[in-house]
Structures are given as C-alpha cells and as structure tokens.
C-alpha cells in the first residue's frame, strides 16, 4: 500500500541567523561538539626581538590581541580578530541584510602610537586610530 508522504519540513539553512540570535560562547552548541571555542589570545611583539630598537624609539613592544577558534558566522573564522573584525564590519555595512554583524566585531578599539627614526634621521610619531582590538564580541 502506498505510504502517505511525510510533509517535508522547510530547510532552515537558507535563513541567515538573525544577529541577535547568533550562538554565543556560552551556548552549548559550541562546546558540545568538541570544536575549539573562540578564545582571545595575546601576541606580544617585541621590537627588541625583531632587532628594531636602533630605529624605534618607543614603545619597546606592542601587545596585539586576536581571536582564534570557532566563531559561527559566514566569514572565514581562521583570520585574526583585527582583520576579521574590520572586514566583517565593512561587509556588514555594505550588505546589512545578507551579512550579519560579526559576533566578534570589536567592541573596544584603541589606537597605537609609535616613535621612530626614518632613514633621514627625522623623528616620526605616528598614531593609528581604531587599530587594536582591546575587547572583541566573543568575550
């Protein structure tokens, strides 16, 4: 006898999760599958290690924070947060209804300043605004 056909559930995967409903770090959907959850790392760049102290006057080094791990959003989750966040935020600005705001978009950015000699002995003080992720969305 012919079996009644089951009503197919509409596939959910075509829906982009609404940004407010992105799974967060405490959502067990991350943990339970054993994937590495997104964590913040610190990478200290020592100018001394790089042998650059003969031309960099200050600072002695630079702390960069970056995220590494599994973040559930459509972009490549292997990039570091600095690149990651800026790119995701830019794409979200351009296509707000297709690309959600990155869950680890930087919530606090700070500037970096560096003082160094150029090759003509001039002393240069450069400040880059909104360049260093101090805290990102995941944490």
């Amino acid at each position, binding site marked *: 006898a012919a079996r009644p056909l089951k009503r197919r559930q509409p596939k959910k995967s075509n829906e982009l999760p609404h940004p407010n409903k992105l799974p967060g770090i405490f959502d067990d959907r991350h943990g339970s599958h054993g994937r590495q959850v997104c964590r913040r790392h610190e990478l200290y*760049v020592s100018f001394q290690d790089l042998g650059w102290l003969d031309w960099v006057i200050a600072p002695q080094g630079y702390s960069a924070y970056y995220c590494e791990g599994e973040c559930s959003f459509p972009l490549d989750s292997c990039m570091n947060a600095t690149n990651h966040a800026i790119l995701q935020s830019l794409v979200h600005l351009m296509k707000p209804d297709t690309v959600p705001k990155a869950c680890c978009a930087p919530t606090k950015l700070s500037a970096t300043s*560096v003082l160094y*000699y150029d090759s003509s002995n001039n002393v240069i003080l450069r400040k880059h605004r909104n360049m260093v992720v101090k805290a990102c969305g995941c944490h």
Partner: protein
Amino acid sequence: GGGPGPRPPHSCPQRPLGARERRDMQREILAVLGLPGRPRPRAPPATARLPASAPLFMLDLYHAMAGDDDDDGGGAPERRLGRADLVMSFVNMVERDRGLGPQEPHWKEFLFDLTQIPAGEAVTAAEFRIYKVPSTHLLNTTLHVSVFEVVQEHFNRESDLFFLDLQTLRAGDEGWLVLDITAASDRWLLNRDKDLGLRLCVEAEDGHSVDPGLAGLLGQRAPRSRQPFMVTFFRATSSPARAPR
C-alpha cells in the same frame, strides 16, 4: 562567495604558531603600526642619539599621545596634538649666517629636507623651534624675532621672502622660542622635492637689525639637546584601507 547560510565549520590550526607564521603575523601587526618597513638610519642607534632636541621633544609628545591611545573615544586630545595622527620632526641640513660684520640686515637661514613627507597627509600645524639663551651683549632690551619663508633665491638680488610669524621678547629671556610656520605648508606640499628655507631676523626696538647669535639664538653649534628643529603635525586625509590577509 557561496550563498547565504552557515558554512561547514573550518578546523582551525590547534597548534601554536610556527616561527614563520609568528613572523608573518608580527610583520602584519607592525604594518598596522604604519611602519612601512625597516628604514636604515644613517646614524648610531636610537638610544645613543636620544638627548638630541627633536627626539626629546617628540618623546614628550609620544607619551602625551600614548596616554590618550586607550580612550580613543574622543576624550580631550592633548592640546599640542589636536587631532594629528602623524607628527614629523625635521632636523635642519644647512644653516647660513649673515651675521657678524657691518652690513645689515643680519639674518640666519635654515634649510630643511622635506622629501620624506608622506603623500595624503594634510598639515594641521607646523612650528619652528629654536632655543634662546640670555644675550650677553644686549642689555635687557626688547627684541622682535621674525621668521620668513625663502620662496625664491636669486643670485643677483635679494631672495623673495614670505612673512610667517613674529615674536617679541626680552634680550635676557631664555627657553624654547616657538614660531608658527604653518602658513608655509601649502607651498611645500606642492613641491616636495624643494628644500624649505626659513630665514630668521632679529630687530631691536629702534628698528636696527641685530645678529641672531648676539641676541642669544642658538644654531647648529648648540649642544644637541638645544639644536633648532622643525615639527609638523599632520592629519591623514584618506583612511588607509587595510588589505585583508
């Protein structure tokens, strides 16, 4: 580039970064610092040079700038910095005196090489800083110190000058004299390969020209920590687009 919808999770590298990856990441982060590459200073290492006047002044500015790095959210910026995000100090290359001797007027000229100014930066302020000690020749009279830009030199007549700033002080004063030369920045940004010439003139109250050296203004022969220099404050005119890795 695929359609919307969650993508299959990537497996991230779980191992610590390798030496090459670490170096690549450091190099990229230093690019964030706006360090285009490692310049080859033509002089001894930074620490040996530090007592010079320009680095000392810039280090002072660096501490002020670094102090407000964290609250980029727009606290009151350090007064001297305003909204500058690049400050360059230039040490003068050539100093010419038309000083001792009967002919007037007396003046002192400084030439600066500005070829290192990066494109895309707008000058927000520019200063010429020269140290003055108490004059041992002039009683405590009033002096007028003016600075001009040497727009064009002629071999058979006086140079074309453009007035920039005037400061009045006492012959017995001591300290850094700061002269505003911002007005000259339009011209030097238009032709970067030309050195910037500044001429300093000193006049007494009665209008007679005074030799800047006798007035106590120090030139290149001053101790390193008191040599004259120029400092320029820039603001980036277009935001640099970072290339994603």
